[in-house]
């Protein structure tokens, strides 16, 4: 064989460690460069996220770097041409920044909320959120409103941490694992590593998913649930557990609000709120004293069940009494829900009993001494080794918040949270329920010129007073987040921004600034309509959205609609902080963060978006970015990351703080912090001691460290909330019984009264309740394949070889009933629109579900691809079928097609019919996008890489 090949050429090889950017996992990567050029990307063996492995996207990073779609220089829309026509002229960075600074300065000094700044799949929300707050606009959010807010909000209003980003299953110790609605792309390597561990350990893996691919392919048992009915299935499991009294009563009494007393005064103010003492503490009935006592006290023996009289003579029941009355009712029995959710009654009952067996007969005890927040010593931790995880198929439905709460209810009943073998928290979580961050909602502050917001744009409302509405009850935010229409919109509602801004509902804006968000294509519902909106003009001939700024590294469909294009770098060309202030990469056993640093020199006239934000913040003299003498505080992004402190000693990076780098988690700025990260393979991990790893909602050993690190404010019990009082307050407002703001419009009253149940419940997805379901017999859902994530992997010369055309997948028997066969071209039609695509049949899809790969379809000419690329001619988007608004009923105002609680885009609710098409070819067809000026990227017929 030849001598040591490429990677071994002495003297020319350089190894760098940095962080992948291909999805939200943010794995550590070890990059080998030869003569300065990329040679090989592999996983970093010691990294807490990926432990050395790497997915297809990560390994294909080389071809992302070589993409023909890379933007090369700042551009402005060619004067005299129409927006969306794709005609641009190159400009200098000076001109781009001067233009933008002038425009933003004018907005900021007149009406700051006329800037809407929304980011897509970015990993720097701590910076963009700070920037928006300093600008003074409430109109900022990232893409969580159409991605994961139902998971985050349901968790943070129930258990203090959440599925998706703020918790992870204990893969090493779980003996029974239920995966609910997780598409192939969430989350990548940690789940794969974990599933292997489960299987080696002999644990049982159950997947609840309408589609059997990816993770579900290797499940020991597959439950093909009907889309949107997971909540019914979960509550039937609750029914079985409660009816057979298979619950952890000690866990419920000690760690949840199950014994708290709830006022029972239907039709009167205060109904459904907790009975509280003068200090505001919730009350329980103490069986030892035979009297009411504070639910926060220890030494009591709270009654789990019963009806009691309050000091002011009202009746009150325990949460647990309300729960058993609710869920043991026949309407939640397996037999009652089986037909609707597509899983037979015997199976539901068996799954519940298997979970209960593992929880209660295969209990784990670890001899770990720990101290609780009350100061009591414990000599062991107990694990009821059932773990669950959930994501897309739960979150993207209009009943997703309540469904996710139903999953957390199962965990609480089993006492299967934060113990060995459970779903466990990732620092900086758990946090108080809900976290004590309120969104800015003062109209005067929002309207004040040249003034930062007093609070962050996003937070967690606990009551109607926290909504961002004006005196008349109208939304203060352009996306209507925190309005009566979506009160707990903790991630904002990016999917509403364009439609609302164009409608001037609730008001018009001046500038829409988008970062890495493909809103003109696969990240919008109603794609063609959205493109029309971006082009829409008023009577005077002005664009209804007057100015659109797009920053991206690549030529997306949305770049085509920009008035100003600010080209970003790739992930290998810039500094980044993957911060605990943002979306943490911690694991249950270690708090962690990481960085990126430039390992390739720039060969184009592009700038990191982070640097542009720091530059704009300095030019616009944001208080946090300029000194009292008016001079800029930070020379650039790396300097900002080192020296900005959110609170004393708390910055974007937690590792190697302190002047000498010896203060982990908290300490003074360290001028050599970047070097320390780079020397440590670009990540920081602080491993928790055994006594800090479990039961952290009441673990003093952990919480003292968490307070010191500023993760939480104080050491205190975080009591899990089976019954959500914040939801009840909103429901009372809908009923006109709240002592505070109440909505005036009938739509809001009805939605609050119907959907804000303080106990987890299930309701029909909103679109389904408004259409003729017989006319649209299929649910249509999507997922991203494991080797792709969001829209930008089709530009990858290797990955698109694996998948360039998406098909509509239908169950073999369902297709036969409709006379459809593999490779037939079919029309797929919803109440909102239709697409033509090609069909394939399979066994592994529930019979009333069709599905496809998400975001494979491309507008011709985008993403550096040729105009006749398969993605454009044969690929398709389901987005065309999904309306951003609900089907209207007579006399009703326009309502968002979203979860009524969180505003999460309900893109999994869509129902369709499928019919054979006489013609072939994907439809609708969009006009091709022209090449950008200066695009001289080679697109050879053959690449011989290497």
């Amino acid at each position: 064989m030849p001598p040591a090949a490429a990677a071994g050429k002495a003297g020319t090889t350089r190894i760098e460690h940095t962080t992948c950017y291909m999805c939200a996992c943010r794995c550590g990567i070890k990059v080998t460069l030869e003569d300065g050029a990329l040679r090989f990307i592999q996983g970093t063996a010691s990294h807490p996220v990926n432990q050395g492995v790497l997915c297809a996207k990560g390994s294909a990073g080389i071809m992302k770097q070589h993409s023909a779609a890379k933007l090369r220089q700042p551009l402005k829309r060619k004067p005299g041409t129409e927006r969306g026509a794709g005609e641009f002229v190159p400009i200098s960075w000076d001109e781009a920044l001067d233009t933008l600074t002038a425009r933003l300065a004018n907005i900021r000094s007149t009406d700051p909320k006329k800037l809407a700044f929304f980011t897509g799949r970015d990993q720097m929300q701590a910076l963009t959120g700070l920037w928006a707050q300093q600008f003074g606009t409430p109109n900022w959010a990232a893409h969580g409103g159409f991605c994961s807010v139902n998971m985050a909000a349901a968790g943070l209003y129930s258990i203090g941490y959440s599925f998706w980003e703020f918790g992870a299953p204990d893969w090493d110790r779980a003996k029974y694992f239920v995966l609910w609605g997780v598409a192939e792309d969430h989350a990548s390597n940690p789940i794969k590593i974990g599933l292997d561990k489960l299987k080696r350990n002999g644990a049982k893996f159950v997947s609840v998913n309408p589609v059997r691919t990816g993770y579900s392919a290797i499940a020991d048992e597959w439950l093909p649930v009907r889309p949107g009915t997971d909540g019914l299935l979960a509550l039937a499991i609750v029914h079985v557990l409660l009816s057979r009294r298979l619950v952890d009563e000690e866990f419920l009494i000690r760690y949840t609000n199950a014994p708290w007393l709830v006022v029972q005064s239907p039709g009167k103010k205060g109904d459904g709120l907790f009975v509280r003492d003068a200090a505001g503490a919730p009350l329980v009935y103490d069986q030892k004293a035979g009297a009411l006592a504070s639910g926060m006290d220890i030494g009591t023996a709270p009654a789990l069940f019963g009806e009691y009289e309050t000091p002011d003579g009202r009746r009150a029941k325990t949460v647990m009494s309300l729960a058993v009355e609710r869920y043991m009712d026949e309407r939640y029995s397996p037999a009652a829900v089986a037909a609707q959710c597509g899983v037979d009654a015997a199976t539901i009952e068996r799954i519940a009993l298997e979970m209960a067996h593992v929880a209660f007969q295969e209990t784990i005890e670890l001899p770990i001494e720990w101290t609780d927040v009350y100061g009591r010593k414990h000599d062991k931790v107990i694990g009821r080794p059932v773990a669950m995880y959930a994501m897309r198929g739960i979150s993207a439905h209009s009943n997703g918040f309540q469904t996710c709460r139903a999953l957390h209810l199962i965990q609480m009943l089993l006492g299967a949270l934060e113990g060995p073998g459970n779903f466990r928290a990732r620092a900086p979580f758990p946090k108080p329920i809900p976290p004590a961050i309120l969104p800015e909602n003062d109209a005067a502050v929002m309207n004040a010129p040249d003034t930062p917001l007093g609070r962050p744009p996003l937070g967690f409302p606990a009551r109607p007073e926290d909504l961002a509405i004006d005196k008349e009850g109208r939304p203060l935010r352009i996306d209507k987040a925190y309005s009566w229409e979506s009160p707990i919109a903790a991630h904002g509602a990016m999917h509403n921004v364009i439609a609302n801004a164009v409608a001037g509902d609730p008001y018009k804006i001046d500038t829409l600034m988008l970062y890495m968000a493909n809103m003109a294509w696969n990240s919008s519902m109603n794609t063609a309509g959205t493109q029309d909106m971006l082009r829409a003009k008023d009577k005077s001939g002005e664009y209804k959205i007057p100015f659109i700024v797009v920053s991206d590294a690549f030529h997306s469909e949305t770049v085509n609609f920009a008035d100003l294009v600010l080209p970003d770098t790739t992930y290998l060309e810039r500094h980044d902080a993957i911060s605990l202030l943002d979306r943490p990469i911690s694991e249950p056993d270690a708090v962690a963060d990481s960085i990126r640093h430039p390992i390739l020199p720039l060969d184009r006239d592009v700038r990191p978006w982070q640097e542009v934000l720091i530059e704009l913040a300095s030019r616009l003299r944001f208080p946090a970015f300029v000194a009292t003498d008016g001079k800029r505080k930070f020379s650039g992004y790396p300097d900002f990351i080192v020296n900005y402190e959110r609170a004393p000693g708390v910055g974007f990076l937690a590792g190697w703080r302190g002047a000498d780098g010896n203060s982990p988690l908290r300490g003074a700025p360290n001028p050599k912090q970047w070097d320390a990260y780079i020397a440590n393979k670009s990540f920081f991990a602080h491993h928790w001691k055994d006594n800090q790893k479990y039961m952290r909602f009441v673990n003093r050993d952990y919480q003292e460290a968490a307070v010191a690190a500023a993760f939480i404010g104080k050491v205190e019990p975080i009591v899990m909330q089976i019954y959500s009082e914040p939801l009840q307050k909103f429901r009372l407002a809908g009923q006109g019984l709240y002592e505070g703001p109440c909505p005036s419009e009938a739509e809001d009253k009805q939605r609050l009264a119907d959907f804000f149940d303080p106990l987890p419940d299930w309701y029909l997805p909103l679109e389904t309740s408004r259409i003729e379901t017989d006319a649209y017999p299929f649910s249509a859902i999507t997922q991203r394949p494991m080797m792709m994530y969001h829209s930008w992997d089709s530009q990858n010369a290797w990955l698109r070889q694996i998948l360039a055309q998406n098909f509509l997948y239908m169950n073999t028997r369902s297709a036969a009933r409709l006379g459809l066969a593999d490779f037939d071209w079919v029309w797929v039609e919803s109440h909102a629109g239709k697409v033509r695509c090609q069909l394939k049949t399979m066994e592994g899809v529930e019979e009333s579900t069709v599905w496809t790969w998400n975001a494979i379809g491309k507008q011709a000419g985008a993403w550096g691809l040729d105009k006749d690329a398969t993605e454009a001619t044969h690929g398709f988007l389901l987005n065309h079928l999904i309306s951003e608004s609900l089907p209207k009923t007579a006399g009703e105002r326009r309502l968002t097609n979203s979860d009524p609680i969180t505003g999460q885009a309900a893109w999994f609710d869509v129902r369709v019919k499928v019919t054979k098409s006489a013609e072939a070819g994907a439809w609708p067809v969009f006009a091709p996008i022209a090449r950008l000026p200066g695009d001289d990227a080679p697109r050879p017929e053959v690449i011989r890489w290497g």
Partner: protein
Amino acid sequence: MTTKKLGLVIDLDTCVGCHACAVACKEWNGASALSGPLSDYEPYGKEPSGVWFNRIRHYETGTYPQNKTINVPMSCMHCEDADCVTVCPTGASYKREDGIVLVDQDKCMGCNLCAWACPYGARELDESSGTMKKCTLCADRIENELLPPEDRQPACVLACPTHARHFGDLGDPESGVSKLVAEREGFGMLPELGYKPVNRYLSPRSAPQVPLARSAAPAPSLSERIAGWVNKLVER
């Protein structure tokens, strides 16, 4: 003394079909002096395709709802009786003493006879170089002393997120891979064809049987079920 038989063991119980192995392979071998580059045709064009050493196939067994999806990565099996070597008219295809089947790119004339001889579809003709390409078991990694010892593995094995891929000497009964094969009753693909494939696959494990929690049958009516719940004295 046993004969060395280097090869892969692939666990179909944990393969989720993610293509990580295939792309890591493409990445390493595309720039490998041993057999790279691996050409990509129409990389930004109408119908992208290219040369891969390893492709993942997806199959379904059974009918809904008793169906199962199986993901099967397929690459060179490094057969003991490798017909691809026998049929090669130029001697380009050869089998090393350690069992790895390789193609000498300087001798190959791209006649395709070996590809026709291979029942596993493991060989792909690179139309640009006019030569045959196939899995090398990363021969330039596994013995590469310039790589740290832990990296001296085929790229596919290093990358696999579910650790479904294992590399080692299947001729040594004491090796980790041989023990794994013995424990899980690993099998070779299409043994009836007689080429004695070295690579082994592990079948999906049977699902664990979980007992049901013991409990009394629920009372028939809601009120009786509610009455069944009585307070216990549990101290906070």
